[in-house]
């Protein structure tokens, strides 16, 4: 069972961008794609402990700001060296103008 946690307002994220979200001591990343879909993943890269929110979003890809490891943020799939472990993703729902992520 997911617990739905309000993360941000839809207007808080630009299209094709990312913002950080912290809940209960855990770091998450919330994304808004070019076609206005919202996604959520773990906040840290799976390679070294770098926050992805400082990285660049291009299309459906988030790139780690430090070592350029890339993930498809819609599926969490790692896109090759230096990252080998997929990024954990979380379900997202929009209610009114609030973005909720499903944790647990």
């Amino acid at each position, binding site marked *: 069972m997911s617990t739905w946690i309000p993360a941000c307002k839809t207007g808080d994220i630009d299209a094709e961008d990312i913002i950080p979200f912290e809940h209960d001591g855990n770091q998450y990343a919330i994304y808004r794609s070019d076609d206005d879909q919202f996604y959520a993943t773990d906040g840290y890269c799976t390679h070294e402990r770098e926050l992805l929110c*400082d990285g660049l979003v291009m299309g459906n890809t988030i790139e780690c700001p430090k070592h350029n490891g890339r993930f498809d943020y819609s599926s969490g799939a790692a896109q090759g060296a230096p990252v080998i472990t997929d990024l954990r993703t979380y379900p997202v729902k929009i209610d009114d103008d609030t973005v909720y992520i499903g944790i647990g």
Partner: protein
Amino acid sequence: MSAMVIVGAGECGARTAMNLRSAGWTGDVVLFGAETLLPYERPPLSKAALLGIGDPQPATLYSEQDFADARVSHRGGVRVDRIDRETRQVILSTGEAIDYHKVLLATGATPRTLPIAAGFETVHMLRTHDDALRLRSRLTRGARITVVGGGFIGLELAACAAEKGCRVTVLEAAPRLLGRAVPAEVASVLHARHLNAGVDIRCGVTVTDLTEVGGIATVVLADGSSIDTDALVVGIGAIPDTDVAEKSRLQVDNGIRVDRYLATSDPDVFAAGDCCSFPHPLFGDRHIRLESWRNAQDQAAVAAANMCGGSEIYTAVPWFWSDQFDLGLQVAGMPDEADREVVRRRPDGIDIRYGLDPAGRIVSAAAVGPGNAVAKDIRLAEMMIAKRISPDPDLLADPSVNVKALLR
């Protein structure tokens, strides 16, 4: 059957060995390294490895099992002497000969030494994990640490030493830190951060003499002044390791000279990483040599493909980073290609400094800020450099303009 032989088991050599499998090579792969450790990442050596508590382990690239699974034979603690190109054999220092199909030279670079410092107990260099462990043991609270060289290695370890409570002095021969690799304004942000942390930075000074008595070194400067220190760290750049190439009579000119496919003057011998000088198509095929983690990694992919008969051209934009205290610096492109600068002043006070060449094309970008705060802008600049874009300088300088729009 003859093997793919890789000389040098650093970032570039180790990655090439593994990449050969994804590039389709099914025969033997032999990876020779001078160190006995499994291949590891070097960037942490001047950062986390000096700071951490406990016994720091090297950041290993691949495990024994990874190599076994990929059937890569890693032979550590081995020196390669030369390539006998007539008999197509790689000759080890022991005289052992290995038949090769293709060879990659990924021999890296060796720290430049300070001749007057040779043989002193108090003198340190930083290239290997063992070097880092030895230096780390000297970074105790209150210890006097003197760093010769205000480049990246020198400043990173000066920052680590200061954070560990050492009394740190940095001696730089040039008028300012970080030389031509970084714009003066970016260097001055780092300079100020070091001063703020109590690091004594002296530019425009040269070391003329060194003595050592009872575990304490005395550094004499050209102006006659002297500094007593518990450890002296030499970080004055690196020279490409071209010994094997020279003994094999391959062309060498500021590194092992390769073509755009990373082939040396012998088409069956390749070179990649810190040791090679390659023509860069984004900068008029000018030959450059890079000492950078990402270059080593990216060239490993191209080298593996071309050793398997491919014809990939290496075109990646030069990029590197440096972490000092809470600040992160990033540089993309070739700042020395620029003849004018455009500054984008972000609302958070961080300046992104772009370099434009005489034709208005963006050729470099550099910035420094807390953590990874500059990463996104430098990455976008890197993409503009790769696409040879000549952006409108007014739009580039305007922080309200989304840089992504300039890319499309």
